[in-house]
């Protein structure tokens, strides 16, 4: 396959700084620190709390959306150490020491990220619910150098379902956003 697989696997292990804690976490709440959008957050979560629910329900970062909670729709996509992952399929406690980027962390103040601006300009969404995931997947795709043409974009972006059917415009947005990011 490709090089992303082993790296994704390591992103799912407990941080080396806390190996002893690994065997005794939970079942009650544990104190962890998550780095989200460059800010450190202390929070107390049960080990069974997904990264998605920690972001939404504990940190009130509701830009990350829950669409299926089963890893099939991509609405919950966030960047963990720059890789796009489904935050519903991983636990918050597994991400101590990781750099997590959510949709709230992409723009610089009022200045939209080039990919965000491209989505607005090309109308790459309708209801907007899958959009945070689409934008973050697109950003990761471009940074990983997978922008090798329209077919590649369509294939690589297929983990993010847009039920409104905005794919034609998403394609245009990703194409243009990639140009702006270069």
């Amino acid at each position: 396959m490709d090089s992303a697989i082993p790296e994704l696997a390591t992103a799912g292990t407990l941080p080396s700084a806390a190996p002893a804690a690994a065997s005794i976490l939970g079942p009650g709440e544990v104190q962890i620190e998550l780095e989200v959008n460059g800010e450190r957050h202390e929070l107390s979560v049960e080990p069974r709390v997904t990264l998605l629910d920690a972001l939404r329900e504990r940190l009130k970062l509701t830009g990350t959306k829950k669409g299926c909670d089963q890893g099939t729709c991509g609405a919950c996509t966030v960047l963990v150490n720059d890789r796009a992952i489904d935050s519903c399929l991983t636990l918050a406690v597994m991400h101590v020491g990781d750099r997590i980027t959510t949709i709230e962390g992409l723009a610089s103040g009022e200045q939209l990220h080039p990919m965000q601006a491209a989505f607005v300009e090309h109308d790459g969404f309708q209801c907007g619910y899958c959009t945070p995931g689409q934008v973050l997947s697109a950003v990761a795709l471009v940074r990983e150098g997978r922008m090798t043409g329209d077919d590649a974009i369509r294939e690589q972006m297929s983990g993010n379902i847009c039920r409104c059917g905005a794919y034609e415009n998403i394609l245009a947005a990703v194409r243009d956003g990639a140009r702006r990011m270069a």
Partner: protein
Amino acid sequence: MNLPLVGAPHDRLDGPAKVTGRATYAADFSPAGLVHAVMVTSEIGNGRIVRIDDAETRRQDGVLAVLTHENARRMHPEGHGFAFALMLLQDDRIRYDRQPIAVVVAESFEQATYAASLLRTTYESEPPITRIEDSADRYTPEEIFDEPADVTRGNPDRAFAGAPVQFKATYSTPVEHHNPIEPSATIAEWEGERLTVHDSTQGVTNARKRLATVFGIPVSNVRVISPFLGGGFGCKGAVWSHVALAAMAARAVGRPVKLVLTRPQMFGSIGYRPRTIQSIALGADRDGRLSCIMHDVLSQTSTFDEFVEPSALVTKMLYAAKNVRTTHTLARVNAATPTFMRAPGEATGSFALESAMDELAYAVDIDPIELRLRNYAERDQSENKPFSSKSLRECYRIGAEKFGWSERDPKPRSMRNGRMLVGMGMATATYPTNRAAASAVVRMNEDGSVVVRSGTQDLGTGSYTVYAQVAAETLDIPIERVRLELGDTDLPPAPLSAGSMTAASVGSAVYEAASALRERLRKGEKAPIEARADAKPQEHERYSKHAFGAQFVRVEVDPDLGEVRVRRMVGAFAAGRILNAKTARSQYLGGMLWGIGMALHEVTRFDERTARIVTANLADYLVPVHADAPDMEAYIVEEEDPHVNPIGVKGIGEIGITGVAAAIANAVYHATGIRVRDLPIACEKLLR
């Protein structure tokens, strides 16, 4: 009228909020003291609950309440019309798979989810009937959308018997689920007898009324808020059980409660597109001129409520024929109540009718567009009224030209791209223009900024942008000065965002309010100033009102595997005034993409022994993903309609899907010589 015929392609005003995560959907709110509810649903499809053992559930940390039929309050869940009957834990009866049977409330979502998983339910199952073919419980509904279920003009049976060319076939469409990416979500909060609900609803005004009825409280005691909606497509139109259950749970624990459906529960109690079996008979002369059309529809409804998929309504109007019969029959099965799903009736009906027209075109050896032109309806023969406007000829012409229809060799299996079989197909698209009463207030502040207030919704349809455009253009000010307030029952009432009627309804109200404001400003009144309009459709329509379009599709079919890939789609649509060229195009494209799902992917499968749905997730229920999307083009065919409504718009949210499934089936026939009359067109149906 200051409004241009095709509105400027403004970016969505809510675009920045949507790409930064600032747009707040129902589940994003967190009132102080919020706790979490999880709905438990039935594991059988027909029968009764013998016992629910909740001892383990109640013992879990954080659990605040367990609601079942044994302790739930008596409610008013009865259905009437499009307010469908609700399952509010009122009895032990299981009527369908995934019916709500309990609600568990806990401090955290995880606690509620785990505790709910420990509930042990014992059932007594009864053998179900899941297929309409097997249901003996059939009847003719009294009416469909205020129209009679069965309509006849002329003498279709005699005309058919005497027709030189006779064509008969049966088409079928499966159960489909809407699957917006935002699951239905409700946050309910009581203050005494006053209920506030954040709900993902296509109609705050409607939801408010229904909740008042269900709880037996005055309408003025209920407030419903829905600033953004993560797609609806019909399944968030009616109020469904979970909304009331969230409010029941909030009352039980005395705190605000959030209840979000799981993805599998999105296949439960929120409606679906019902299965249809449709018989079509066409009688024509050898030149393809229709003398007769008969369209008989059998569709499913639940054992306890009624929804009619109005597949044959389109057939009464679309083509000129002296003798027409359309009928609708319902069959009761052990399933939840179906509901509206993007172009209810037109999507399923156009698959049958437009496939049949293609088959007739081959039977008489006439080009499919030419066949349609020979049967062009100059007036609505069913209503015996002129059309308010109809630009279907232009749609055929422009669509064919953009698509390159002239390159088509009509002979099946005649075109190839390498080893792939190439097929080109077309079909007519149409959707009626609806309108309902809507109110809006337009206010100009002292600084010249303008606020438009209306209790409508934004499903992704562009409400925040297009009504700002209507106000800005009417007042002749820049759109940047206009702000929308919507999605709240504290605002002037507006109808459901459904039936492609919001632009006609709310757009007319905003236009009338802004026009009144402009008049008063002209007479010298100064800001701050506001005007309200309560816009209503005419009581007696002099015209038949429909949007029309033409769909063109190119497919490639793998001759060994039967895999169908749509490679290109062109749609040309005439729908009166277009408020925003950019968002309109997006909606057309979205509808067309839905047509791909309908034609090739989407089917909800039932285990016929248990009536359980076995495809209740997005891995087994396939919707089009990005790699399924072809190159797509949607063209706006300019059309001025002075009769249809004050702003001359026809609505565009649903027409995009109509005709697509037929156009794809027609293209697949052209590619392979195999006619698939049962959706979806799965590869096994093409392997010979």
